[in-house]
């Protein structure tokens, strides 16, 4: 009897083995994804309808948090900075491409140069932030010493609401360019030498060669570089936290930092309001995610 069921079980599994095995491998990942990604998304939606300090009992306030967000000037400052981040952070893609083109040659010691260019991506964002904070220091910093030689007065980059966001983005571009560079370097390895040869015979040179022959072949690398840069721009939290702590008077905040500030920082006890900001940020990200998924889907279908 026992052996019979065993056999039956085994044979059922045997019969469906091909279909089942991938799912078995996927189960741990799926469970983690459901528990740590999908569930918190819905939890955030729920919390955003509460007035809750994260410790005691929350009370439901409906869409009050969103209504307040609508009238909150700090929210618009953060949103504006997020957009500036998105636009300027994309500069990392062309910059990375040109450095990659520059480094894609066979010279003695090129590996060393490549690793030196890649170095800023390897070090922690916190270190990048600290280095740039010292660099920008209005009294002792290298930047102001340097422009001082040309007779320009000190610029308080991180303490002036006009420059602060750009100053932080410049710091962020340093590692992000390195990241794009490495993506393009691997992409350049896959460029078909025969096509380059053929183009050369047809008389293509310089910019035309780059634009019509090389860049189309780098499309996969460009896509990945675009994805990681957009995500990087929306996640820009650590640099802001290290370099300015959101200041001066909140002018360098982005949505993710503002969320942290109202919900989790030293003086933040408004989980509901924080969750509402998180939801807005999620909706913005969702636009990009949908676009990425859609273009990946199209790509797959094309093959």
């Amino acid at each position, binding site marked *: 009897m026992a052996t019979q069921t065993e056999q039956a079980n085994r044979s059922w599994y045997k019969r469906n083995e091909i279909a089942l095995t991938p799912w078995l491998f996927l189960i741990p990942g799926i469970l983690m994804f459901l528990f740590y990604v999908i569930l918190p998304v819905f939890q955030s939606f729920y919390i955003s309808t509460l007035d809750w300090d994260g410790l005691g009992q929350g009370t439901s306030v409906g869409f009050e948090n969103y209504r307040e967000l609508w009238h909150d000037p700090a929210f618009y400052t953060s949103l504006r900075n997020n957009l500036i981040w998105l636009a300027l952070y994309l500069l990392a893609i062309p910059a990375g491409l040109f450095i990659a083109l520059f480094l894609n040659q066979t010279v003695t010691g090129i590996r060393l140069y490549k690793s030196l260019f890649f170095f800023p991506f390897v070090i922690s964002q916190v270190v990048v932030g600290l280095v740039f904070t010292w660099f920008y220091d209005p009294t002792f910093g290298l930047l102001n010493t340097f422009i001082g030689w040309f007779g320009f007065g000190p610029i308080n980059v*991180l303490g002036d609401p006009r420059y602060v966001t750009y100053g932080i983005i410049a710091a962020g571009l340093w590692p992000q360019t390195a990241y794009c560079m490495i993506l393009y370097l691997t992409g350049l390895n896959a460029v078909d030498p025969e096509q380059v040869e053929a183009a050369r015979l047809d008389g293509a040179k310089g910019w035309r060669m780059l634009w019509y022959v090389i860049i189309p072949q780098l499309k996969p690398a460009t896509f990945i570089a675009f994805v990681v840069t957009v995500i990087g721009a929306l996640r820009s939290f650590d640099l802001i936290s290290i370099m300015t702590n959101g200041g001066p008077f909140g002018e360098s905040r982005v949505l993710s930092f503002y969320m942290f500030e109202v919900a989790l920082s030293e003086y933040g006890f408004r989980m509901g309001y924080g969750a509402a900001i998180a939801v807005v940020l999620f909706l913005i990200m969702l636009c990009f995610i949908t676009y990425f998924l859609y273009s990946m889907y199209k790509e797959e279908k094309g093959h």
Partner: protein
Amino acid sequence: MRSITKASIAALAAVTATTSFAFADGLSGDLKIFLDTSNPAPRETFETMIAEFQGMNPDLKIETTIIDREAYKTQIRNFLTANAPDVATWYAGNRMLPYVQPGLFEDVSDLWEGELGENLASTKAAMTIDGKQWGVPYSYYQWGVYYRADIYNELGLTEPKTFEEMKSNCQAVLDSGRKCYTIGTKFLWTAAGWFDYLNMRTNGYEFHMDLTAGRVAWTDDRVKQTFANWRELIDMGAFIDNHTAYSWQEAIPFMAKGEAAAYLMGNFAVDAIKDAGVTDDQLDFYQFPMIVEGVPMAEEAPTDTLHIPSNAKNKANAKAFLQYVASADVQTEINAKLGQLPVNNKSSVNADDKFVSQGFEMLNGAYALAQFFDRDAPAEMAKVGMEGFQEFMVRPDNLDAILTRLDAAAKRIYK
């Protein structure tokens, strides 16, 4: 279990009353302590004190965790709910409120009954919410203006007693090519020190407390007067340039290098200023001068405290520890090392330290003691307010917009 706990506390209290070495009655079990005393001097002080407590109670298993002071402020709410220690450091005043309201701090009013309560009476109000006491203070310190005595001597200046003198001193300092005051407002709270003092000297302690408690509008003319006084200093160019880029520690080199003459700060800054190369002879201290005659002089004296989380497992041991820390001898000893003031009025103050002894004298003569803006006002109001102060220091012309914003925030927060 409860009665045993109570009995043992009663016994402890009884013994404490007769001898100050009553803690040696051999506690057993565990005691888990979380501290935010991560700076070198406080860290060592607490480690030594806990080692002594351990020596009195050899059977007690003490586990101490020292957390970075800034990180502690955000971690506390996690460990109070999830993984509570038996004793935790925190601050007095409204700063306790977010943890008292949801019932995360244990009511320790019984410790305040009797002699200990009388000895700690000066801080009782700051430890009381809803008529109960929620912790025990171990230290407090004065705020005031720390200045370079050598620069003042060189320019023939004396410690100012009035705002007029303060301004004329400042003009003399400016004329000598220096700045009057260093400050680093990157983390906002340093600007609140200026606001607190200017407001308390302009409108008095009661008004200041009403404002931080939300009973007065921020758009009130009296608040505007405070800012007008502040603006006089700003327009003179009294503060260092680019202060928004610096933390309070990063602002010290300006004073050390003689580019700025003074610093409005808490007494904890003395160590850091001396470490930066300012000698004891070069550094001196004065009380924030009078602005409006007849307004009684209240001072800032933030109190550092110890609490028992409600989720603690060894409350009896924790109470014994709190009692130990609050006792006169221990307070004398730890505050001598911390360079701060003991709360227990039977303790003695380290007379060799001129800053501590001057501060003690000043606070004893004070009309009233404020905790600090971010401890007197609720957390959210503190954040919005301090951001406004920083903006005001950079763009004084925005004052009306700032005050309107603060008022709107206050209406939401104090509803």
